[in-house]
């Protein structure tokens, strides 16, 4: 086995709390299938037969009830992390360290993409990298998608990525907040890598290939809590610093001794090429570098690479806006992001029973009365849509009832929600089991438990 897959599904959906109060983030429906189905399907298409799924403890029952494993036909090892702990991604990985035997592929549960994984894997394999990550151009339509129930724009935290364009070697990966006015770059790095592109328009897809030793390194360094925020920037930075002179000087040695010496030992033990490694590098006649007289890769043992998606689609449904937008897009992009997988019954396209177009999905057991207009909407299972209901750009989860003559525009209705007769809702979120009274007129509102039974 070349890679082990780990699906990070323990996120709390902190950027979409309105939806996740009643439903764990990974099970939020996108195109009438739980969000987590998409990354699992991606893995399945790339030959993975099993995957480790990390979920929060409180969501365990729901996740296992959802029977995701049968839907994707994979063997899932569902690991729960204690709900008392607020663990970061790195801590979760540390938690499952015993299960990790080979290099890992880490993927987030909210990633929906038509990316072909082998392209990233090829970069990883070609350079015997320590870490490879997928970067995708941010699609503006998703970022600027109006988020229902929110006033003002969601502030996006940008990443600043420095990448050597022809090799894909990462120079730095930091959040915007890590820098002040300037982005510093060491001179010797620039001499060795004279062509560095700095991007601020790239999104980290949260798809990583990680060497086994990096997991070991994570285990040793318990102060690292997240992969993206802490591990990644530090490993990328440490690529260029070798600890040739052990214990001689400077403070970085303390850090470096952990990263560089250990990896060095570990890379070799991991790759099992130790004994002939020197001979190999001596014999190699490759010349593909500038700026120093060092050996291949300037003697860097730790190498991090990024792959920038050139075309195709890569979306993370991690904010309200992108969640709503992905749902809107999914009927169109279904084939490409799922590799023409057969739709689960619940995700079949709407029939022309009512005035629903190709741009909608209607779930199983949903009753649609006459004269219902459905446009660009996703409707879950067992919903009741009464007469003369108009839906535009809506996401409606399971067991939702919409009474006669209601008009809903750009709304998200969580499961078991009820919308009374003749209501007009615009840009609203109706939480789980919430009721919207008859003849309500709401716009840009969030109806949650606290505000039970709003009456106007």
């Amino acid at each position, binding site marked *: 086995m070349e890679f082990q897959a780990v699906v990070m599904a323990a996120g709390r959906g902190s950027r979409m709390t309105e939806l996740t109060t009643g439903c764990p983030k990974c099970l939020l429906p996108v195109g009438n299938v739980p969000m987590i189905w998409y990354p699992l399907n991606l893995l399945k298409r790339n030959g993975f037969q099993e995957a480790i799924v990390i979920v929060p403890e409180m969501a365990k029952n729901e996740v296992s009830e959802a029977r995701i494993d049968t839907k994707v036909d994979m063997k899932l090892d569902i690991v729960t992390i204690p709900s008392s702990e607020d663990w970061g991604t790195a801590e979760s990985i540390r938690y499952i360290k015993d299960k990790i035997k080979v290099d890992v592929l880490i993927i987030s549960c909210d990633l929906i993409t038509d990316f*072909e994984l082998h392209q990233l894997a090829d970069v990883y*394999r070609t350079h015997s990298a320590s870490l490879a990550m997928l970067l995708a151009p941010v699609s503006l339509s998703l970022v600027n998608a109006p988020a229902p129930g929110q006033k003002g724009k969601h502030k996006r935290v940008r990443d600043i990525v420095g990448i050597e364009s022809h090799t894909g070697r990462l120079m730095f990966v930091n959040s915007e907040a890590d820098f002040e006015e300037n982005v510093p770059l060491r001179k010797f790095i620039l001499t060795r890598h004279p062509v560095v592109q700095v991007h601020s328009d790239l999104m980290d897809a949260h798809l990583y290939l990680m060497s086994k030793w990096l997991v070991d390194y994570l285990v040793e360094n318990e102060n690292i809590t997240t992969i993206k925020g802490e591990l990644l920037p530090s490993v990328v930075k440490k690529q260029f610093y070798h600890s040739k002179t052990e214990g001689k000087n400077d403070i970085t040695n303390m850090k470096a001794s952990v990263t560089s010496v250990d990896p060095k030992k570990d890379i070799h033990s991991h790759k099992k090429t130790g004994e002939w490694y020197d001979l*190999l590098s001596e014999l190699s006649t490759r*010349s593909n570098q500038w700026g120093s007289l060092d050996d291949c890769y300037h003697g860097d043992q730790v190498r991090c690479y990024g792959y920038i998606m050139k075309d195709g689609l890569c979306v993370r449904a991690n904010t309200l806006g992108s969640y709503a937008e992905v749902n809107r897009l999914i009927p169109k992009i279904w084939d490409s992001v799922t590799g023409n997988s057969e739709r689960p019954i619940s995700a079949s396209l709407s029939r022309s029973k009512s005035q629903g177009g190709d741009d909608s999905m209607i779930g199983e057991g949903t009753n649609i009365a006459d004269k219902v207009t459905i446009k660009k909407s996703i409707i879950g299972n067992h919903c009741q849509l009464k007469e003369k209901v108009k839906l535009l750009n809506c996401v409606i989860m399971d067991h939702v009832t919409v009474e006669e003559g209601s008009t809903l525009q750009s709304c998200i209705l969580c499961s078991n929600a009820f919308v009374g007769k003749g209501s007009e809702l615009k840009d609203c979120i109706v939480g789980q089991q919430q009721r919207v009274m008859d003849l309500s007129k709401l716009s840009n509102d969030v109806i949650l438990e606290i505000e039970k039974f709003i009456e106007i």
Partner: protein
Amino acid sequence: MKGPNFKVVDKTSESSTQASNMCSRVQNEQSKDNKLAPAEESTINPNLSESQYTLKHKKRKSKKKKSPIRTVTDKEEVSMLSADGDIQLSKKNGFGINLDSSGQASEEKIVVSGLEAIKTAVSNIDVTDSIQKTKVYDHQTLVKAENLLKSTELADSLTGTLKSSIMSTHEALKEESWAPCTGAGKQQRLDSRASNEEGQKTKAQLKAERKAAFEAKRVAEVADKRMSDKQTQQKSKATLRAERRAVQEAQRAAKEGKHQLENVCPVASVKMQEVFLKQDHKEGMKDAEQGAEFSVSKNEKSAGVKKVHKKTSDDPRVSQQEVRKKVRLFRHLPQYHHNYLLTRNLRLAGSDLHPSIIGLGLQISQGVVRGSNARCVALLTALKEIIQDYITPPHKELSRDLEAKIRNYMNFLNQCRPVAVSMANAVKHLTRFITKMPSNINDSEAKLRLCEQIDTFIKEEIKLAKQAISQNAGENIRNHDVVLTYTCSSSVKGALCDAYDEGKNFRVVVVDARPRLDGREMLRCLVKKGIQCSYVLINAVPYIMQEVTKVMLGAHSLQANGYVMSRVGCSQIALIARAYNVPVLVCCETYKFSEHVHTDSIVYNELADPNELVTELPPNKQTLENWQDIPSLYLLNLEYDLTPPDLVAMVITDIGNLPCTSVPVVLRVKHAGSQEV
């Protein structure tokens, strides 16, 4: 032209006697052909001259049992000798399965006769160009009519049993045999053959094959009816024999195709293959048509060709572009392709290929691991890793299963980049050891032994050899020498560094060449060491040669006839050195000696990425970005060339300083040594 020796291996069955008949006939025909039409010799001769070494080549191929399409190279039509060789060898090697079973044996004979048939076809076709010549053969064909009838039956029965199986090999074969003779269609067929090589077997192929099978059957039927017509007889004979051959190939292909489909990712995407195969099919139809029309006038024939031209032009642009961009003289070589498609169908988990092999393949194709020694070491370390992870599947034998696996891996590597001679030799050595492994030892013991074997190989054949070479080379470097070296060779690099460490005072001229500029790596190492260096590009060599006292070159391989295969440009350097009376020394480890014989860089070579030629480094701007769209432009990026032995003063090897011509001796001694083990 040399009359090949024919040995009929087994005369027990009818088909083998047929084979012998055909052989002798071909011989006759060819000798007559020689007398009659000396002008035609030129078309055949270059091929025939290969026949000596084709034998070796073929042996290797038949042993490997590669895909039938690949096996069919343009050398084949000539090598009647090799057909015999095939059988002898296959007997020796067991040919995979039970040889004593009569079925298997007869099948082999069919192969032979099939091969002969094609050769007959070749000579026949040569002749049919002028009617006069054909008449000479009339009496012969009459004599053969009886045999033919029998063979027809045989072929028909075989086709009947294997209706659904593969026939495109037949076409490929036909194309092969017809290609050198018919000028007009030659180019096209070469195209399709090359594409055929690229597109290996897939399901799509099976479809095309079925069609082809039908086609061929039709031809056979037509041929049967016209048995009285002598010339059609010739045709049908050829077709039928080819058919039989194809049937045999089909069986093999079906077996292997299934295997490969599962194991090795296809090089090209299925879509591309479909396109290619369509083309193949059309080519096959053309052949069939030509077969039928051959007895008719030339005009009609050319009309047929035109028709096919039209047909092929229907193909989508993609394939045409691909085809168009092959440099004519080098169409027969595996064309460079991007590695994007290589890994596309490989699973990220649970792939049949070991991760280390996938990684190695990519590293080799991307040039991260470069240089034939480095590639060999990397391969061996990867194999070691594989062996360590290896567990014999139940009901299987380690020696057989592992060998098959390694063969599979080598297939993949070959797709990434044609395997270097050094790698092939090392794997040959290893598989020999594996097959000789006693079956009664347990897995861990066997694995241990194999790993040991790999380590000794690396140590003795590469590491110590390198040291020995630098020692031997060091003796040849004197104070105040000016040594010229070309691009980067690990052994030359080592030798120069060691000589410097010994305290010798010399200067080095590093000659480099676009597009790869490997010489910079050499320069880097030498400069790092502190050796005094000059760096010039190859176009300045005549100027710099005046001050040079020795030329030291590395080698990719040393051929049995003493030709040095090395990075393209070496022969040019050697030539200039000769003009200035500078001795040329070649450093080459003995494990890179090859039993192949090549006399030019065309028959066997490697094509690198043509884009390298138009790309600037680092890639900020491409001068001819859209070169694929310029119809009048072809790019040729050759990897190797051959330096004739008379330009080389001496070869510095790990066993001493030798003349180029001593390769066969070294190989014989080595072979004897390995036999004893």
